């Protein structure tokens, strides 16, 4: 078998896995979407109000928070994973929560990774709304609340872009969820492919393990799905950027 045949055979089997909606592959995809989607929604619910607070309010510790957001945008995922791991292991300070190696732990890790990203990009989108637009709200009799709503409307495409950037980042992330989730699937095997259904196994962590087990076609199938998801997110982001 030469190199081209090897690649070709792997790709054909990969497409078969996708087209046949292979349960193992689908369960992994489902966990990825659920974990990253939930983390992104929770992060957006925190980050967008935070960005508005940082733009409109003056309070003690504001500069510190801005620094935290900026630093958080570049946090190494494995570090976040390690930090949450030591918090959540049975001997750790939050061990009583029994969250280690669960999807909730993965959501928590991605929430911490994604919140600063959404906050940072939203903050930039809010800052990009021209000052005279906000002042116009006041000239027309509007109050602070109206200024906030108008800013939200003016910056909405930028904020949507921020959320999609966060989702893209979460879907592609591997280090943190591997550590706190453990890449676990049910024992046993379905139709001899992979293992049982995914519990904490995601597209990214499964690609790592399938590749190391030399199951190239399954890894390729997962890779194709991952890339398609990320591509869709990016296309959507581009669409909204174009609308602005």
């Amino acid at each position, binding site marked *: 078998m030469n190199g081209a045949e090897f690649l070709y055979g792997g790709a054909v089997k990969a497409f078969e896995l996708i087209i046949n909606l292979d349960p193992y592959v689908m369960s992994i995809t489902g966990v990825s979407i659920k974990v990253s989607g939930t983390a992104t929604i929770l992060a957006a619910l925190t980050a967008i109000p935070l960005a508005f607070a940082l733009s409109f309010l003056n309070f003690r510790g504001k500069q510190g928070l801005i620094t935290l957001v900026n630093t958080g945008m570049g946090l190494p995922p494995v570090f976040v994973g390690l930090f949450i791991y030591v918090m959540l292991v049975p001997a750790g300070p939050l061990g009583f929560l029994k969250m280690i190696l669960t999807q909730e732990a993965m959501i928590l890790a991605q929430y911490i990774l994604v919140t600063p990203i959404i906050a940072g990009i939203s903050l930039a989108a809010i800052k990009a709304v021209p000052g005279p*637009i906000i002042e116009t709200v006041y000239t*027309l*009799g509007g109050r602070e609340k109206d200024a906030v709503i108008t800013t939200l409307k*003016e910056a909405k495409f930028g904020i949507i872009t921020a959320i999609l950037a966060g989702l893209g980042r979460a879907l592609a992330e591997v280090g943190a969820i591997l550590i706190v989730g453990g890449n676990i699937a049910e024992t046993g095997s379905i139709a001899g492919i992979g293992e049982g259904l995914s519990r904490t196994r995601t597209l990214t962590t499964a690609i790592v393990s399938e590749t190391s087990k030399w199951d190239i076609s399954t890894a390729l199938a997962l890779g194709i799905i991952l890339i398609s998801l990320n591509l869709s997110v990016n296309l959507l982001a581009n669409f909204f950027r174009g609308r602005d």
Partner: protein
Amino acid sequence: MVEDLFRIENLSMSFGDKKILKNINLVIHRGEIFALMGPSGAGKTTLLRILNFFEKPAGGDLFFEGTRLSHVREINTVRQRMSLLFQTPTVFNTSVFNNVAYGLKVRKMDRTAIEKKVKDALTIVGLQGKERQKARTLSGGEAQRMAFARAIVYDPEILFLDEPTTNLDPANVAKIEEIIMQVCDEKTTTIVLATHNIPQVKRIANRVGLLLNGELIEVSSKDQIFNSPSDARASAFIKGDMVY
């Protein structure tokens, strides 16, 4: 009946150590078109921004209908009765209708009344039928007229205009001047017009205040200031001898 609507006493303003406004004393009468005339850099915009509470003066007092303005609450209430049109028109990124309706929505007017008032205001500025157009696609002159409609739609008692016709072609200038006089007559709106345009002042103002280098040199009726100015600098400015 001449009634004091706005009174300014001993008002001064500095940016850094630069004195921008020096001991301004001025009364705006209800129902008049008052021209705040002066060369570029005289401090006209700064004075309008103070009267709209965007800048805090270094010293002096503001009275609205005889009441000294001091608290944020009073300022918000007074702001609701005023309107300011910026020199460069601002456009909310939405339809013409939503732009013009803004001040009415802020005042919680009901939908039918809003539709009628927006229609009337658009007719006054010659933009009837453009409700559904995206405001960002208006030409410069149209955007300025839309901003004008937005500023008058809620019948403010006092309307501040900052160089409302600079950068407009002659047809739009004539249109805006006509609207200013119409609004003053029909809606009995008091108008404060900041401008460096002497012919415009001659065409539409009732009373004139000449602002030079932050000093209010002369305040008098239009006839008086143009026919027998009491200050040598005033007569030089009016004759166009003043180099600025």
